[in-house]
């Protein structure tokens, strides 16, 4: 049935039917064939956080080595490898994937959909992420860990990294790019087509706007991080000369390609976290976001400008002044939309009658204040003469870590406190959350604030140790102590998770009294998300005119006459909407569970592995398997046996 008829069916029957339709198979088969966006998001969350911890351990190893001059904790060689893997793990495997984690879990709920537009592609994107991460970390098992820096500048990485390390890096990065790209396509189409009826683009939650912007940025910037490492892999493995100046190649070409991706990616990993804060802060300020349209415009403008700033990473390479000047101006200009975002937050909090200082709110506000420091040092290095002075020093290390930690890691913890009750059904401890916040944030500033000064007095970055008597000892020691404090703060959050799970305080559907649609369903979320397709008429559909949560959310109990789309056959049905104003389009049959995403990702793994070990047989087997998986994936569509 598609409409609940009170004469023939009860709400309980409808929910039972929907559960049958949307549940995965039990046990192991269900685990491997599931395409549920909630499972995808859940897996992304766990995997991404594990990589965050691994990257953090590598950072601690480096900070331990740098605690005192001439230390011998890590050899120079091992330091380089940890430096490379810290940057690679954090940027590629954590920062870029935690946004997909919350995106996958929250966005379909926030727009009132039953799944992402392409459920199978969605799970495929996760498997590729997992396999690409494993691929890069295989290097640890043979001791040939990437050692050329996460930025992988040539010729260091072509001529002076002879072992397989940078091959793992280059091919792993290309492999992972597939995951990000298909994920971006999925987010865009989901936003355009799967919004609940009446959820116009001007009622679209800001987290969806920021992920939409980010996804377009991925489409246009990730080709650079596919082409560059692929050409590097060709140079290293089959002997081409793209980056070899002796035979017509060019070393600076690498930097152009890398930073054409490398700067937009900074905003790609920062805009969605700002989107989380756009959701969290209004909830705890009990206030609608001030200047919604300004926030949307600022988000989209940041996306555009971010493509015109990459050369500011290359001010010291001797480019013509006019070129560098253009990029300097653009880099200064990108601070304008970010400032608009800050004004939006300030105005929202300013006009609030009462602010609830929950752990989530603390993390959110702490993130914004810390981020401002990184923003200001960003404006400083956008000015060319200043950049020449601080280039390749710890000043830049301080700047980039302020931006990334405050722009992504702290919002991640805010999001954990805010949305984990939706994922798990139980609340995290507020007290431990606040302890974790203060310890982590004090740690953060202790690590990175002294590094500004270290950079200004000339300590170069990327060095494994330094001499005594340069006056750098105290600041370095403080920085290392801060790193351990930061780690302790993170540990408190991990303890909080397990302790709260044990304590199990029931969350209920809307523990924060929030106004957006993801709170209109049960916690944890039922397999079908919403028992009844919601119809949306407001940016905060769950709030009344006093910004108080309405008592009976729409998605939990289907009402007589509600659109439930619970067919007799085992089809995943949902409503497809069209246009900016989300008119009713058609009833869509979505793809159900399938093993093909797993096979395709595994086949790609075999192909990349064959390329890595220069083994044509393995490569061919992998490519054939890729072809077969693709045929299998689409076979049902071709024959008409399934849709």
């Amino acid at each position: 049935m598609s409409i609940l008829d009170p004469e023939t069916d009860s709400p309980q029957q409808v929910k039972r039917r929907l559960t049958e339709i949307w549940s995965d198979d039990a046990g192991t088969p269900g685990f491997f064939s599931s395409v549920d966006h909630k499972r995808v998001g859940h897996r992304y969350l766990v995997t991404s956080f594990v990589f965050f911890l691994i990257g953090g351990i590598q950072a601690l190893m480096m900070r331990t080595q740098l605690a005192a001059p001439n230390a011998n904790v890590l050899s120079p060689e091992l330091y380089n490898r940890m430096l490379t893997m810290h940057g690679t793990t954090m940027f590629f495997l954590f920062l870029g994937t935690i946004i997909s984690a919350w995106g996958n879990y929250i966005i379909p709920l926030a727009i009132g959909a039953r799944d992402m537009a392409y459920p199978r592609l969605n799970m495929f994107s996760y498997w590729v992420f997992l396999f690409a991460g494993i691929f890069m970390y295989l290097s640890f098992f043979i001791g040939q860990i990437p050692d050329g820096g996460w930025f992988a500048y040539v010729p260091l990485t072509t001529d002076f990294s002879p072992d397989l390390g940078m091959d793992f890096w280059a091919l792993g990065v290309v492999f992972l790019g597939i995951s990000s790209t298909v994920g971006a396509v999925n987010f865009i189409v989901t936003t355009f087509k799967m919004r609940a009826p009446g959820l116009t683009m001007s009622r679209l939650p800001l987290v969806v706007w920021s992920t939409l912007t980010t996804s377009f940025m991925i489409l246009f910037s990730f080709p650079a991080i596919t082409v560059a490492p692929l050409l590097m892999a060709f140079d290293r493995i089959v002997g081409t000369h793209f980056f070899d100046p002796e035979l017509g190649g060019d070393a600076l070409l690498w930097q152009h390609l890398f930073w054409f991706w490398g700067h937009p990616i900074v905003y790609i990993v920062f805009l969605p976290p700002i989107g989380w804060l756009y959701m969290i802060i209004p909830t705890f300020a009990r206030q609608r976001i001030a200047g919604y349209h300004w926030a949307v415009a600022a988000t989209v403008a940041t996306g555009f400008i971010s493509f015109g700033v990459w050369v500011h990473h290359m001010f010291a390479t001797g480019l013509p002044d006019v070129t560098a000047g253009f990029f300097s101006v653009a880099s200064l200009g990108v601070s304008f939309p970010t400032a608009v975002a800050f004004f939006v937050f300030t105005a929202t909090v300013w006009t609030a009658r009462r602010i609830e200082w929950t752990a989530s709110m603390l993390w959110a506000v702490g993130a914004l204040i810390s981020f401002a420091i990184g923003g200001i040092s960003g404006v400083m290095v956008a000015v060319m003469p200043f950049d020449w002075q601080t280039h390749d020093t710890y000043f830049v290390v301080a700047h980039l870590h302020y931006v990334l930690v405050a722009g992504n890691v702290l919002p991640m913890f805010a999001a954990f406190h805010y949305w984990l009750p939706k994922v798990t059904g139980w609340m995290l401890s507020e007290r431990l959350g606040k302890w974790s916040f203060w310890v982590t944030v004090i740690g953060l500033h202790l690590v990175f604030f002294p590094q500004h000064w270290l950079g200004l007095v000339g300590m170069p970055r990327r060095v494994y140790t330094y001499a005594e008597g340069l006056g750098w000892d105290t600041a370095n020691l403080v920085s290392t102590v801060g790193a351990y404090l930061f780690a302790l703060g993170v540990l408190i959050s991990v303890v909080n998770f397990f302790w709260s799970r044990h304590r199990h305080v029931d969350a209920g559907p809307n523990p924060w009294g929030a106004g957006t649609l993801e709170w209109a369903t049960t916690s944890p979320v039922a397999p079908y998300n919403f028992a009844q397709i919601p119809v949306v008429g407001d940016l905060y559909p769950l709030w009344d005119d006093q910004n108080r949560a309405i008592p009976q959310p729409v998605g939990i109990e289907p009402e007589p006459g509600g659109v439930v789309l619970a067919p007799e056959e085992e089809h995943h049905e949902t409503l497809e909407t069209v246009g900016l104003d989300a008119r009713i389009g058609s009833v869509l049959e979505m793809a159900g569970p399938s093993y093909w995403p797993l096979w395709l990702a595994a086949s790609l793994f075999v192909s990349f592995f064959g390329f890595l070990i220069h083994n044509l047989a393995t490569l061919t087997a992998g490519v054939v398997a890729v072809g077969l998986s693709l045929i299998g994936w689409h076979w049902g569509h071709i024959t008409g046996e399934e849709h």
Partner: protein
Amino acid sequence: MSVDAVRAQLDVPSGEGRSLAWWGIVLTILTEGTLFAMLLFVYYYLFSRAQEWPLGDIQPPELFTISIRTAILFSSSATMSIADRALRRGRIGLTSVFLVLTFLLGALFLAGHVREMLILPEEFTWATNAYGSLFYVIVNFHGAHLLVGLIFLAFTFVALRRGRYSADSHEGFKVSGMYWHFVDAVWVFVFPTLYLVPHFLAK
């Protein structure tokens, strides 16, 4: 038709929009197109910094065969368009004929590509110098996309013969046509770069 029931039930306007498949292929084309743009950027970047072009003793590519092959590839876009129009008028037989013709023209182009790879002088490889690297990587990258396009067409043919497409539902057919046109359109940029620049902008 349950959508009518939904429309009758909800007080929300209804409308017709693009399908999921259409959006999927458009976004794929955008990102793949950027990928080719990146590769051509690499070409022109190295070209602009080189003292001589082509580098070393490599002769500029021969133009006669490639011009014919280019004409073949572009005509395959025309036959694909005809197939699409035929399907929209419900003429499945005519659609099949022109789809097969498109496939054959594409396959002919690809056969020419393989032949070209085999007869290129032995001293000209992708390891010769950056010019060789650029030529081989870009031309084979396009070749690989063409192969994917051909597989796409083969799938479409099977689906067509199994009655999956008709005048009313030809979205899937249109989408594979769009990918095919894209692969042809890329050639509009790849051909002058790889074959005409070494002749007419030689230095």
